[in-house]
């Protein structure tokens, strides 16, 4: 089991050489903008140093792994006797505690003394991704239907609000449910042609749906504004109170009515709180749905479609409802996104967004809502934290993703929490 020092040395030298090869394009070459335009510069010492770091690191890690393995071998009983059911109960308890903690933190965050515009802004972004992740989690995590084009619902929600508000003049609170409904309708429509598909084929068709939506938006100039997008989308108001310095016609402003001095922070706080409300509502609804027949049917569909049919569950209805509910949450997120930015354009809805949302679901552990929250925090915050690494922040991001997938291949929270336990039911029946 344990390897000799020579083995480790050999392995680490190979790893170091590989890292140096990879480092040539990633680190060795960089661009500088000069008077003559963009110029590629080279920095070979950096390549050497990164190779050395990887080499030494992999050597030390190999030694540490041997040490740990030896220690584990010394007391094998402990690992063998651990019962999975107790582990499961502990995970349930931990994730419940975490859920309460993070909710309290999220609610109090805007009122903390240290919270500023930057924190509110990043926090709102995290919440949008949590909402998107929860939506995709319904289709991918619960119903087991892969969707690589989830961004389509995000875009449909955003454009629904943008178009309704700029042409008909409807406000955010009217358009929010409408956007959700329109996105849900598209979700149901999309689910029709893919009822018989699974696996790779399903992935390709959903990927196509995402791209079709983006390209239609890009080219339908008269309706969507094409590549120029739609601007002048009204901001959300609080019972008719605007958060702008000069409120639009027909609205009074928040700072005038309440007498609090005007500050743009208030608007950011307000947006944050709307997003938080949406996320909490979505989390509650999905939690309830999971314990209802419709949610159980989704999970059963993920587990075994043939068994579902033999028990009288209509797989068509289950798939359509899963896509509709997932799409609806995507639509809400899109509507909110449009309201927050005040501007939408096709650029915001590329494939990379779909990939990012899917990464959140997979990273969090399919089907786990808390997992989605943690993963969204991770995916949005890591590049922010990584700003200190400047050029290397995407490398740091990539390394972190690989590390998680190596150590937790099933996602951060891969343990499924049962929707009901017989032991917690009152034993009156039967």
């Amino acid at each position, binding site marked *: 089991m344990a390897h000799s020092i020579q083995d480790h040395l050999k392995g680490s030298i190979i790893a170091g050489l590989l890292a140096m090869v990879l480092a040539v394009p990633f680190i060795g070459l960089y661009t500088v903008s000069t008077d003559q335009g963009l110029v590629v510069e080279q920095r070979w010492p950096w390549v050497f140093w990164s190779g050395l770091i990887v080499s030494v690191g992999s050597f030390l890690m190999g030694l540490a792994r041997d040490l740990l393995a030896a220690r584990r071998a010394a007391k094998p009983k402990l690992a063998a006797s651990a019962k999975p059911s107790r582990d499961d109960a502990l995970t349930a308890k931990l994730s419940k505690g975490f859920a309460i903690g993070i909710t309290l933190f999220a609610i109090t965050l805007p009122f903390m003394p240290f919270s500023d515009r930057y924190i509110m802004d990043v926090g709102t972004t995290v919440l949008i991704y949590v909402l998107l992740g929860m939506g995709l989690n319904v289709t991918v995590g619960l119903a087991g239907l892969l969707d690589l084009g989830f961004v389509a619902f995000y875009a449909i929600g955003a454009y629904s609000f943008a178009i309704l508000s700029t042409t008909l003049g409807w406000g955010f609170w009217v358009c929010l449910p409408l956007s959700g409904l329109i996105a849900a309708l598209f979700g149901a429509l999309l689910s029709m042609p893919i009822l018989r598909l699974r696996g790779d084929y399903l992935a390709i068709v959903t990927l196509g749906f995402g791209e079709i939506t983006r390209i239609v938006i890009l080219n339908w100039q008269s309706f969507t504004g094409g590549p120029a997008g739609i601007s002048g989308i009204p901001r959300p108001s609080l019972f008719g109170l605007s958060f702008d310095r000069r409120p639009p016609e027909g609205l009074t402003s928040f700072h005038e009515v309440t007498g609090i001095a005007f500050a743009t922070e208030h608007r950011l706080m307000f947006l944050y709180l709307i997003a938080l409300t949406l996320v909490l509502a979505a989390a509650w609804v999905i939690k309830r749905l999971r314990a209802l*027949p419709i949610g*159980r049917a989704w999970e059963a569909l993920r587990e*075994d479609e043939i068994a579902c049919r033999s*028990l009288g569950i209509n797989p068509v209805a289950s798939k359509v409802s899963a896509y509709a509910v997932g799409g609806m949450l995507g639509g809400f997120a899109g509507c909110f996104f449009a309201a927050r930015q005040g501007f939408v354009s096709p650029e915001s809805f590329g494939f990379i967004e779909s990939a990012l949302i899917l990464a959140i679901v997979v990273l969090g552990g399919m089907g786990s809502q808390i997992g989605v929250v943690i993963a969204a925090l991770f995916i949005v915050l890591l590049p922010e934290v990584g700003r200190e690494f400047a050029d290397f922040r995407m490398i740091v991001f990539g390394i972190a993703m690989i590390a998680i997938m190596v150590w937790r291949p099933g996602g951060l929270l891969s343990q499924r929490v049962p929707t009901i336990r*017989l032991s917690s039911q009152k034993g009156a029946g039967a």
Partner: protein
Amino acid sequence: MTDQPLLSVTGLTMRFGGLVAVDSVNLTAETNKITALIGPNGAGKTTIFNCLTGFYKPTSGELTLNRPGQSPVSLQTLAGYQVSRHGVVRTFQNIRLFPRMTVLENLLVAQHVGLMKKAAFGVAGLIGLKGWRAAEKEAIDRARFWIDRLDLTNVADEEAGNLSYGVQRRVEIARAMNTNPLLLCLDEPAAGLNPKETGALGDLLRGIREQFGIGILLIEHDMGLVMGISDRIHVVEYGRKIAEGTPEQIRSDERVIKAYLGEPDEEELPAMVAEDVAGQEGGRA
């Protein structure tokens, strides 16, 4: 109504391209009786099951379910998922549980159709109306009844996929019974069970038949079990039914013995093969 058998299958034929898997088979299964369907491997037993439970559309034939007090249903006209809603439920040769859901959840999924109506397609359930809560409690009680009946109490909150093979078989039967069936179709329920478990399974099936008066249709290779619990046995070979009768009749039926043990004189080539060989040699000469 009483003289009509619960299930009557007439002229069931299933063709896959040129292959005739099931050839005009007639079958009946009665309430309060255990009917067995036996035959060598590849005889078409599971194909008959798949036609019966809506997984295949039969090429021709009539599958009639005579429900007590209700009009008869032609099963072959139903969409696959509707068959169990009319009272015919099945288990699978290779167990098909929902592995990452607990035993209790598996049994609740089986009650989906009734619960879905009570939950008003989610709306009543979402806001937790009283009617829904009562329906949910009833469903849990029914699940609990079958969990206790099949001795699954200790594993009710375990994920079904983590259970041993024999226990999974029991969970599958419990799940099927949670749909409130009229006819329970079991596809090789004793496969992979040890003799003790097989004995318990026989007792269980007899108990279910007596207590609930439903019909049981059984595909099984374990002759001890089949002969011990069946009221009536149908034998199929190469897609055709070759015999039908009580266990005693089947045991002494010559065609059945032939189907299972082969021709008594094995040195001689069967007539058709001998002709073939002769023809080829003639052609070469």
